[in-house]
């Protein structure tokens, strides 16, 4: 597949989803501070990786997320209030997983990787679309299930695209202390083709995921993409990352914010203008107001 450039419509769609995800995430953080949510695992810094990948794999792919894939969920059409419901203690999953082909969050690390591989195998046996996307974080790759899932996907040649968002931290343990190779290298050890890309540029992510999805669909074999992303906030609202993470690193990550960067880029290229941005801002404001009414009362 040629690395074609993305249409302006697609670029605007990507930015819109990123801005909405940022707004919802920010509102959820506020709601948690007010006591309306019990916990929130911010995805700020990972919007480019999530929005770019979800749009690239298309609506037919069945997605097995971990628990920080809020931007991915919203882009897939999970309504914001349904996304937040489980963090307000109202349910274990607020949306319809079948309807969105976006399965419930799995909080036990990497458990969903084996489900994703099995689901793909089962779909293939029934001669149904077997393309599955599994999201996992760098911390979860230390779990045995991740290695078992990669090995099973390899030997079964399952149609699974593993997307590992490496945000540099397993809660408080930096990647350098978690692994001596990249996750992408590890995948190749299992016989899975892989690539390692920066995850802050949604267009690059989109192109790579289109290519990887084609690989999985055409060869009916797994693929793994490791995306290097920044984690702007703590692991969750329950940890103060200042306790274990250098100030410089925190500031650098915030300064490299992919949402701000992409907004600036599309503005500079005249793909979006102030009026378009005001439109999205107003959409985000309405959404946040709805969430506040629904959850803060």
């Amino acid at each position: 597949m040629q690395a074609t450039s993305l249409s302006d419509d697609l670029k605007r769609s990507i930015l819109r989803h990123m801005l909405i995800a940022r707004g919802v995430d920010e509102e959820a953080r506020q709601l948690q501070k007010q006591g309306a949510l019990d916990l929130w695992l911010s995805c700020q810094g990972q919007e480019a990786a999530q929005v770019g990948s979800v749009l690239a794999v298309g609506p037919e792919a069945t997605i097995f997320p971990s628990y920080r894939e809020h931007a991915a969920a919203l882009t897939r059409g999970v309504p914001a209030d349904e996304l937040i419901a489980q963090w307000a203690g109202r349910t274990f999953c607020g949306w319809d997983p079948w309807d969105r082909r976006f399965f419930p969050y799995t909080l036990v690390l990497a458990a969903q990787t084996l489900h994703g591989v099995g689901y793909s195998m089962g779909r293939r046996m029934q001669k149904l679309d077997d393309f599955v996307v599994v999201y996992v974080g760098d911390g979860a790759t230390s779990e045995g299930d991740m290695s078992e899932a990669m090995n099973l996907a390899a030997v079964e040649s399952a149609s699974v695209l593993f997307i590992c968002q490496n945000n540099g931290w397993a809660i408080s343990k930096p990647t350098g202390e978690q692994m001596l190779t990249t996750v992408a290298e590890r995948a190749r050890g299992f016989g899975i083709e892989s690539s390692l890309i920066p995850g802050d540029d949604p267009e690059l992510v989109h192109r790579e995921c289109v290519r990887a999805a084609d690989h999985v669909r055409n060869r009916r074999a797994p693929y793994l993409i490791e995306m290097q992303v920044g984690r702007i906030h703590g692991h969750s609202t329950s940890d103060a990352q200042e306790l274990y993470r250098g100030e410089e690193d925190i500031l650098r990550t915030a300064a490299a914010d992919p949402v701000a960067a992409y907004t600036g880029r599309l503005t500079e290229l005249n793909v979006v203008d102030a009026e378009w941005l005001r439109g999205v801002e107003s959409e985000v404001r309405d959404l946040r107001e709805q969430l506040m009414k629904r959850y803060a009362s």
Partner: protein
Amino acid sequence: MSSRRPTPLAETINATLADLLERNPEVLLVGEDIGRLGGVFRVTRGLQERFGRERVRDSLLAESTIVGHAVGLAMSGLVPVCEIQFDGFSYPAVNQLVTQAGRIVNRWNGDIRLSLVVRIPSGGGIRGVEHHSESNEALFARVPGISVVYPSTGEDADQILRHAVGMGSPVVICEPIRLYWRRSLPGRLDEPAASPTSARIVRRGADVTVATFGAITNDVLAAAEALSPSVEIEVVDLRWLAPLDMTTVLESVTRTGRLLVVHEATKDVGIGAEVAAAVSESGFDALKCAIRRLAPERRDYPPADFERDYQISVDQITEEVLGMVK
């Protein structure tokens, strides 16, 4: 009383699995060495030749993989019947069973069927090496989303397997290894269970109710035979350990006024404690003496040379019963 059918348990399970594969295209078998080898106990012998490698699948030697990917298979609409090679090797699969399989229907707000059966050859008495003689049914029985059943005859295993594949939620079936190929067994009452999920009264008696399950049920029946007619024991084969059919137990205790629970797993925090507590709560007035439990003390299953000391014997059962009626 009818004498047991001569077909051994393993052969009955094999025939039931074959019939399920034949009738239901969604059913598939997954487990270590179940295909080419026919399973370490030969329970699945001949099934791969008959149904193919796709439906009788030799899995990787990884228990978390077996159950974890079976969860995905079940989500896709298939009905995987997994085999864990031995009870002692089920622990690597416990996370997938407990935090995933057992919770997924609830996590999905009931909007998914997860028909997933995990067969676990269980228990000792076979001179097994370490980890090959364990009884971990009580561990799984603690998990709200998992049903646990321990059939002790081929007829029960057949009924239970057919029921389990259609439940839409995960079922752990413990199968007594030492009965797989045994052909001669004590006679049982030929009275059907009230339902596929209920306990079964396998001997009638007016003096003492003994609630039990698994291979040791035959030892309880042997003890009952030895004591008859001076003491008549009513033997309840619990079959389902989660959820327990306490109705059948309580009705029996109401008739006899005495309850002994016998099982092969260690006594502490075991199934016997649950049965005893439930009868104390709901059947106390019917009791003529204290409820008793007979099960091994809290310790590891020993090396094979010592398993006779560990296992509850027929003599211990008769002695315990006599202590209750004196």
